[in-house]
């Protein structure tokens, strides 16, 4: 074997050895990188937190939705929502947690249970009742107009109607 061939063989050996080492380090770093990715916690944004908080109210600050309430208590609640979202809780789970802990009044809309049903049933019922009353009133008014009731007088020209009334009033006055 000549010296040139030996050098070439040595270079090839060194190159392959370097390659093996690089591969080894790459494989070593792969799980570390994956672990680093896993270790980076998911931090829900303010928008994600507020999307849930806007439908909730803290009993301490009545009439102020949780997403805009500036008190420390509400800030802690929003932080709790953020932590729960980070743990993968759904909106329903979060709301259920708050209801169990702080009562149903934390919700902007009461859950449809028991007497709360009235809140959901009454407005459409009142609307339907209003429409029915209106329809009946309009029918009665139309029927009245057609049958020559006093409202029929309204269809006469204004002056004529006025004269007719004047004539009747005068008639009645004469009888007195």
């Amino acid at each position, binding site marked *: 074997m000549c010296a040139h061939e030996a050098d070439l063989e040595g270079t090839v050996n060194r190159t392959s050895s370097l390659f093996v080492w690089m591969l080894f380090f790459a494989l070593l770093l792969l799980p570390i990188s994956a672990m680093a990715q896993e270790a980076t916690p998911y931090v829900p944004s303010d928008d994600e937190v507020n999307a849930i908080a806007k439908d909730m109210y803290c009993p301490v600050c009545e009439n102020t939705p949780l997403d805009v309430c500036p008190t420390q208590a509400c800030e802690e*609640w929003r*932080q709790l929502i953020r932590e729960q979202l980070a743990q993968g809780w759904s909106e329903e789970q979060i709301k259920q947690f708050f209801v169990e*802990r702080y009562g149903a009044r934390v919700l902007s809309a009461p859950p449809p249970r028991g007497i709360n049903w*009235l809140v959901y049933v009454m407005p459409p019922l009142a609307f339907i009742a209003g429409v029915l009353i209106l329809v009946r009133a309009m029918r009665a008014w139309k029927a009245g107009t057609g049958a020559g*009731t006093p409202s029929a007088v309204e269809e006469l020209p204004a002056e004529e109607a006025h004269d007719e009334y004047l004539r009747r009033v005068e008639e009645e006055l004469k*009888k*007195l």
Partner: protein
Amino acid sequence: MPDEVIPSSLPDAQPASRFSWGRVLVWAFLGGLLLLLFFGLLRAQGTNVRIGKPAPDFTLTTYDGQVIQLSALRGKVVLINFWASWCKPCEDEAEELEAAWRYFQPRGDVLFLGIAWTDTEEKSLAYLQRFGITYPNGADMGTRISQLYRITGVPETYLVDRQGNLVYIKISPFLSTQEIIDVITPYLEQ
């Protein structure tokens, strides 16, 4: 003079009221609704939180897992304190309450109960640790207890005598340990 002045051309007046099942149903529905509202309001005002009246009964699960029912504490004088970790006036009285508790605890016939109102558990526990509070404390789950006592905020303190009657209400923080001792002591002699 004629008795009535009614134009002859006007149609005969309709009967004032006609029986109709629809009307009956509507009135029955409205009546039922009013009754429902009446009883709802009556129930909402049902709890009588007044001095001299029996204290509303409740069950408190403490942070260390004890289940304490107020009605099971007859024979003891019970101090019920509503607080929250975010409440600054609560901090003012926290040490005074703990000192008073340590003063009465050896007797065995006085119990202090702390009820955390609209607080997060993590913050509540940190608060208890910060002020070294050792008497039983728990969260007001579902704000049921605070609704029973109709609290208006925190801190609020209620004292229940040996017979289970409410004998004292304070809607502000205690200013000193002595003040708490002075409030409780007369009821120990009864």
